């Protein structure tokens, strides 16, 4: 099994999620609010006359653990729906998962997804 971890724009989450939900290999998702920095520039703010730059930009990190054979479909769906073509669209990382357990039942492996 693989964990697909994608850093995307918050505005795109809805589009990505509804596209994912239409895939039959979609089982679940876990999401975290993160801050990211890459090629995208930050925004300058000010307070009492002094400017400051927040170069960490709010992003959403979504994680899905899926069967090896589903990685590509999930990946493609994310890319298609999260892409705007502007700098800052984010990244997808794929990581190997050794084990999965469903806490409710104690099931392990693929059936726990």
């Amino acid at each position: 099994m693989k964990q697909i971890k994608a850093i995307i724009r918050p505005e795109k989450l809805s589009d990505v999620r509804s596209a994912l939900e239409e895939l039959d290999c979609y089982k679940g998702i876990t999401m975290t609010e993160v801050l990211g920095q890459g090629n995208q520039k930050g925004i300058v703010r000010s307070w009492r006359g002094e400017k400051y730059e927040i170069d960490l930009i709010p992003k959403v990190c979504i994680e899905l653990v899926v069967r090896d054979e589903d990685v590509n479909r999930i990946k493609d769906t994310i890319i298609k729906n999260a892409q705007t073509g502007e700098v800052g669209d984010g990244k997808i990382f794929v990581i190997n998962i050794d084990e999965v357990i469903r806490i409710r039942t104690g099931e392990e492996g693929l059936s726990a997804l």
Partner: protein
Amino acid sequence: METKVILDTLWVVFAALLVFLMNMGFAALESGMCRSKSTVNIMSKNFIVFAVSTLGFFMLGWGLMYGDGNAFIGTKGLFFVSGADNSPNIGDTYEGVYSAISWAGVPLWVKFFFQLVFCGTAATIVSGAVAERVKYISFIVFSFFLTLLVYPITGHWIWGGGWLSQLGFMDFAGGTAVHSLGGWAALSGIMIIGPRIGKYTKSGKINAIPGHSVALATIGALILWFGWFGFNPGSTMAADPEAIGHILVVTNMAGIMGILFATATAWIKLGKPDISMSINGLLAGLVAITPGCAFVSVPSSLIIGALGGVLVVFASLFYDKMKLDDPVGATAVHLANGVFGTLAVGLFAQKGINGNEVNGLFFGGGLHQFGIQAIGIISVGVFAFILTSFLWLAIKYTIGLRVSIKEELNGLDIGEHGNEAYPEFIARKINYTHLLEDINLVEEERSKQQVKVCY
């Protein structure tokens, strides 16, 4: 007499300051009912709006409204409240150009300040309706002309000795002069500016956009309730114990019935006692009683408040169905109930209450007064709607009315003000919008560039 002037002044100043505090109430209510990414913008709007209103009303508004003149506008002592005036003299001893308000036995600046806070309220009403998408400078310009021109003219008709007051139109504390006027300006605004991105989808879905702080909103509502005890009883502009006591209780009764009935209506119709509806219910009841508070009995006020509470729920749903996006329900509260309350005077007014000489329909007065009320509502409505539409459009085609899509998505706080309201707290975007589903993007197809940079 001297003592009476002092007493009246104390009362009017006290009441005026309560109304002034409504600025804080509106600021808290409106920002609490919108998203955190617009908090600085809403606070800024509500903060500067009284400054702008003061300027507008001082420069010309007061003169247009209360200056002696014709049935449509004041023409004397127009600018800078600088006409001749020997207030606090009243009646025959009054010499000056602001005779329409010469019945109030307080110094001129006290009159001015009292009228100013009412004018400011009308401007504030608009602020909430166009929130989260209007440009800061455009709102400032609009408010300036609203308080310089629009509010004073209809105000002249109603309170400044103009044709409606001659006709016998009754609007004690400003259900039409203040609330529905502000409501019309809000309505034309939201029609012209369009809904927030994410509110309505092409497929007809209505998305709820919950406010970011119920605590802030509720505090604001409680302050408004408090302020209304200046708004209505203060409109006596005289320290008249019986009238004050009566209006105080009548105002409160309508407010609480508004709460109870709006809460119950929401509970029954929507399944839960949603606090946003309870709050709107309070305000609905208070607005509804505003025009008639000095003319109706306590039992009538219970009925008026209750009807206001029911009305506001259905009005809110109606506006949403019409795809008129009003983040705080300003139109459902101030327009719908300002109109209803003004009509209610024609129904519930009773002879003898605080010296009132007119009976409404339900008390044997027939449809006469009701008709006058309707004329007032319609004429003010048509005039205000057209004039403010024109204003909004003029702004739209000169300095622009709405921020860019990108700025709206990121929040006006950063785009317009360079500030964040809560920079330390981690916020999530509740209302993840299906961008390409949004009705706003239809009209944007013409300007693809804008869509391009929208992310």
